[in-house]
């Protein structure tokens, strides 16, 4: 393993200057030179005592990280009990060899001196009970595990008090301590490197790719053939309200909310306005649409005109049924409240996004005895709409109603794509819970499936 590492490094450095290469190799081997003596002494100590040093010690660059991290692995042992402790030691030079802006030959000499003076010490970076820090305890999914679950694993990360530079070799060893007994494994070196892909997050990426295909595919499918969408009950309520207004011979008030045309809820409100206008035209009822945004007004005017045309009543269309009031939140509200009180509309529609003004509007509407239908994705206003209106299209129902009416492939396809996503999540929730429960009852390991729907870093 070590040899492999060194070979890899040698290969990596082959492009660099030869002297730098030498320094690097020296830096690699330097701790080992110094340690051979140290290891010899501890080796003797170990022979006198019963404790065996940690076996099969390996140190590797931590995979899927931004660099500055090493992963230490060693086999489990018979003495893995809470009373025995493991210590992770890093070999550091007590004085720093600063090769920064020095000529390579000077630096080489400095390193040689360092080795000769044996100013290398072992610094303890972690100390923990021997029955902890297994591969299974590390928060990595099964597909990035570096070894079997019962092997010990400790992750070293550069931080305060432990500086690790990318591309610099570090030697690490593990000691086992039981009371006064203490043995060490021979140190192993590795070089922390930054990585180009975080394999822990491959499930996240897979979801993005699959969901992307599902959504874009559904849109394509919707262009080719009809997509089934269940009937939205709120739309029946819309028709009913228009019917009642006609019976009473009173006007209908329709609001498109506070948003501009870039908000999906405003677009949905405009689409539903088309439907309402068509009905209104065929019954020849009066329609009033006060606006807060000039662009939304222009769009809605077009839609209304088109609806009257489709209903075969182009003469009944009035240019001023859509009118602009003001952009100011509360002035607009006061004006609309005034209209409600004066004209006493039989039905009020509140579609689109709303803010604090929702309550002021719906309360006045309710006090005039009008049928009120709301549809919004502003979830903070939802409670007020539900309690003051006769029917409320909640959140995505508004988009669904709009897609149902417009039959536009992009809207329909998106809705279908999201439905497929939801179905997958429902399956994941059901299956996941069943497996998690089974794992407790049967003491089985179910991480093979559960890890797929977890958030990894």
């Amino acid at each position, binding site marked *: 393993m070590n040899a492999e590492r060194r070979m890899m490094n040698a290969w990596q450095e082959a492009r660099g200057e030869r002297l730098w290469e030498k320094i690097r190799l020296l830096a690699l081997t330097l701790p080992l030179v110094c340690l051979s003596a140290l290891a010899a002494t501890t080796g003797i100590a170990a022979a006198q005592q019963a404790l065996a040093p940690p076996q099969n010690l390996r140190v590797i660059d931590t995979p899927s990280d931004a660099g500055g991290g090493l992963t230490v692995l060693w086999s489990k042992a018979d003495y893995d009990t809470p009373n025995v402790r493991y210590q992770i030691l890093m070999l550091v030079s007590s004085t720093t060899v600063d090769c920064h802006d020095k000529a390579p030959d000077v630096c080489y000499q400095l390193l040689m001196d360092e080795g000769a003076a044996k100013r290398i010490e072992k610094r303890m970076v972690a100390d923990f009970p021997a029955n902890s820090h297994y591969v299974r305890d590390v928060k990595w999914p099964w597909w990035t595990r570096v070894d079997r679950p019962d092997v010990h694993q400790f992750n070293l990360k550069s*931080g*305060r008090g432990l500086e690790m530079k990318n591309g610099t070799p570090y030697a690490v060893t593990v000691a086992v301590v039981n009371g006064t007994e203490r043995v060490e494994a021979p140190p192993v070196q590795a070089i922390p490197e930054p990585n180009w892909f975080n394999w822990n997050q491959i499930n996240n990426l897979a979801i993005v790719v699959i969901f992307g295909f599902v959504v874009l595919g559904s849109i394509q499918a919707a262009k080719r053939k009809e997509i089934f969408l269940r009937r939205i009950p709120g739309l029946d309520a819309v028709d009913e309200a228009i019917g009642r207004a006609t019976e009473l011979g009173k006007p209908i008030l329709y609001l498109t909310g506070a948003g501009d045309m870039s908000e999906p809820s405003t677009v949905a409100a405009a689409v539903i306005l088309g439907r309402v206008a068509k009905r209104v035209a065929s019954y020849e009822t009066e329609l009033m649409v006060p606006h807060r945004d000039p662009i939304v007004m222009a769009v809605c005017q077009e839609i209304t005109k088109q609806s009257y045309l489709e209903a075969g009543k182009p003469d009944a269309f009035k240019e001023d049924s859509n009118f602009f009031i003001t952009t100011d939140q509360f002035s607009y509200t006061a004006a609309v409240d005034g209209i409600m009180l004066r004209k006493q509309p039989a039905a009020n529609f509140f579609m689109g996004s709303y803010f604090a003004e929702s309550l002021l509007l719906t309360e006045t509407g309710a*006090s005039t005895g009008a049928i009120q239908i709301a549809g919004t994705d502003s979830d*903070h206003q939802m409670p007020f709409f539900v309690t003051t209106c006769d029917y409320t299209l909640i959140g995505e129902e508004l988009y669904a109603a709009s897609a149902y009416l417009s039959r536009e492939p992009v809207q329909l396809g998106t809705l279908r794509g999201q439905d497929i996503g939801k179905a997958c999540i429902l399956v994941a929730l059901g299956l996941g819970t069943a497996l998690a429960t089974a794992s407790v009852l049967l003491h089985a390991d179910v991480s093979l499936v559960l890890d797929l729907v977890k958030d990894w*870093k």
Partner: protein
Amino acid sequence: MSFAERMLHIDRRIIFLLIGLCTLIPLLYPVGLAIKVSPEVKSVYDYIESLPEGSVFLLSLDFDPASKPELYPQAVALLHHAFKKNLRVIGMTLWLPGTGMASEVVSRVAREEGKVSGKDYVFLGWSPGGGSVIINMGQDLYKAFPTDYNNQPTAELPVLKGVQSLRDVNYVISLAAGSTGIETWYVFGKDKYKFELGGGCTGVIAPGLYPLLRSGQINGLIGGLRGAAEYEVLIGKKGKAVAGMDAQSATHFAIILLVILCNVFYLLIRTSKNRAEQNRS
């Protein structure tokens, strides 16, 4: 018009008056009912309590004057607690209209606790971009905010010594009045830079944050004026929030009463209408 209908059509300004009085009278003549502390608030308190002296605590005051009555008392209580614990305090805001208020509250509480700007605490001010600010702070705090609000270079401030980036911050609390706040701090901050995150928020957005609380994405939640009052109780320094709790009780009961009355009248009207229809048929 029946009695119930007439009652439902009384001038709403009478109700305005009622609610005004329900707020005003308890404020002038407080009762001081006991306030029970909820676990969400307690966990924020416990976490600050567990931090050793000199830990770095970042308070992001992500609200505007519209939410001042709810979040300002939270900020005061949290700052008192942090300064009492001798934490190093970093104040900032992601909301432009709140900058002046945030600067004022941090420096005022610091003065009351005898803390010095630059040495014990720093106020960084506002920067545009929401999540982008957090990303930049996560990489290099000195570059994201080259100077603090008083135009002092951040890299030279003793309070920020060793605080290169958000990775060196121990605890972040965002006091949020909207979605740029706790959620932003989680998605662009905690998720990557691994500090612990707590939240304080207005009553309007509090229910929406419970999924994040349950999954441990935030470790505690101080909700609205009530949350602030609980925190004031915990640190034993009763302020504006505790003082407002009696008025809060009174107004809530007034609203409950009004809702019940509304529904009683509504039922009366409906049954009498039904009866009338039955008689007709």
